[in-house]
């Protein structure tokens, strides 16, 4: 029958599981983000550090190529935990920050601006499903430029070396995955919380940038004024450096303990969750 001749009818087909609903939000949000060419170009740029690291590893184990390029082996950096932390993970995590700042605010702010939450939440999905759906977008895209290529590069290095290199450095895989996920989850939740409070996406992006960088500046000011180190706890980048140092088992000393750094990220995550829980609701409360 022609489509325009069909009248109102009920749906009697099968329904998907209620636990699969966040994936619907994830799919649609991801699709709208991937439709931007600018974003796709940005993703390619984010993969450049990983590509560079791969080239270095390749050159290390290919003397013929090194000789052709006339690069002496002793001029290449040593491939160890420090190499992976400094040249691979740190640039990647900076790109993760930029990516979350770029797309995080676009996920929730427009729904607030267009009063779309009442439409979402009058369906059989919960606040949690909604946030998880949006969070999955940030986590999956950030993972694509952080721990997934890093893990592959570590495995690539292991495949190039003769001997038990991987068993001796197995902690690197754990370090890469755990550090990346801590960073990604806390920044993503923070970005979603900000976008739930600020209806205009570009302003929400600026707020996110401000909170991360102004936090560092404020911490430095506290340290300067009161002659203490506690101001470092306001800096997420400082806390990240401590986590990287601890998980990669690097030499060095930091006044901020590993536990304190983890607590900072846990606090950011918890506060953001509370804000999201309060802000995500079917009707806008005007006080």
């Amino acid at each position, binding site marked *: 029958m022609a489509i325009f001749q*069909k009248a109102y009818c009920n*749906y*009697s087909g099968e329904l998907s599981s209620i636990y699969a609903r966040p994936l619907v939000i994830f799919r649609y949000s991801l699709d*709208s983000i991937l439709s931007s060419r600018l974003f796709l170009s940005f993703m390619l740029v984010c993969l450049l550090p990983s590509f560079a690291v791969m080239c270095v590893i390749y050159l290390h184990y290919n003397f013929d190529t090194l000789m052709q390029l006339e690069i002496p082996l002793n001029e290449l950096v040593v491939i160890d935990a420090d190499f992976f932390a400094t040249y691979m993970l740190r640039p990647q995590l900076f790109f993760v920050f930029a990516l979350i700042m770029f797309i995080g605010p676009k996920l929730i702010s427009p729904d607030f601006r267009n*009063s779309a939450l009442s439409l979402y939440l009058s369906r059989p*999905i*919960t606040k949690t499903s909604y946030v998880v759906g949006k969070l999955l977008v940030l986590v999956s895209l950030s993972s694509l430029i952080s721990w997934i290529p890093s893990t592959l590069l570590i495995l690539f290095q292991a495949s190039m070396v003769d001997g038990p290199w991987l068993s001796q450095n197995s902690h690197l895989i754990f370090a890469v995955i755990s550090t990346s996920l801590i960073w990604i989850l806390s920044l993503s939740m923070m970005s979603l919380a900000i976008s739930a409070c600020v209806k205009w996406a570009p302003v929400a992006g600026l707020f996110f940038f401000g909170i991360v960088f102004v936090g560092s500046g404020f911490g430095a000011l506290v340290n300067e004024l009161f002659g203490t180190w506690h101001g470092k706890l306001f800096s997420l980048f400082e806390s990240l450096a401590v986590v990287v140092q601890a998980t990669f088992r690097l030499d060095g000393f930091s006044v901020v303990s590993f536990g304190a750094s983890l607590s900072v990220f846990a606090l950011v995550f918890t506060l953001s969750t509370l804000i999201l829980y309060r802000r995500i609701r079917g009707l806008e409360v005007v006080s």
Partner: protein
Amino acid sequence: MDVTTKQVEKEKIKESHVLTDKSHQYRSDDSQQLAVADETDSTAREKQTSVSRSSNKESPVIELDNLSVSFGKPVLNQLSAKVDGRCIGLLGPNGAGKTTLLNTLLGFTRPSGGTARIFGYDVFKQKNKVHGVIGYMPERDSFISGMTGIRFVRLMAELSGLNPRDALERAHEVYFYVGLGEARYRTLDSYSLGMKQLAKLAQAIVHGPKLLFLDEPTNGLDPPARARMLNLIREIRDSGKTRIIIASHLLQDVESCCDEVLVLKKGKIATYCNLDEERQNNRKFLLLQVRGDEDNFVNGLREWGCEVARPSRRHIKVVLPEDISIRHLYALAQELSVQIRQLDHKSDSLEDVFFRAMDSE
């Protein structure tokens, strides 16, 4: 042709137009014969409806049990009712608690006391089950920016649990059904107000809900668009598959669609009535517009035992006793040299019901 024969014929026509596939059942509405049958045997339909209503053993559509909602001060005050109509109008002046009741039924507002149930499911404790059977068309502009109409409705269908393929199919069908078929690939931001209202209706019915909440569905619509919206609502109501709750300020709209009304006043139920029953209970009267010696004419009517009221100058409301007919009125008018300029048969409208509810304590 008697009513039974017509019904059998109507059923035959319906059967010949029903197509069934694995997940959907469609009814053709191109048949003019069916429309004629629908119009001519409205009495039979009413009988059918009343039978189905009385034989309906499901839980009531909405069951309120001492429902209270408070935002510092009480907004809804111990509401208790069992609502079971096909289309229920939610009426009340501003601040009466209509929107709060709607938000509570949708699970957006937590009750401070009592319970509210939809088809037996507690609106707060079994939110997902409630949301699985309802559709909601909000009053305000609500959409997802940057999306085409069809994609928006498809997303809403998938969120209700339809698989992507069925969701796409239903989204197309429902877009044509509401009359936006040609605009389905345009972004929602480019829609006019009327189109946005229709898109909101489309997303509310795409998953075939058992209960449909319409919050001011005709808000901001021009007369043709309003008529179209009301027709769609009546069609959905008459399909018998979906119950409807309409919150509106426009009594005319509610009267044309609803069979029951729930009137709220200061957070309490002022009245809950069946409009048909109310109309039957109300006495019919004649509304006359006269010119000439009105006082004498009124006295003459009273001498005959007529109940007379004068709502305004030159207008007279008359309830005639059984032995007096309209012919007698004209005779009296001629005798007293009074001109009867207009004569209408009237009965109490929803407006009368509403104002009576507002006047009652």
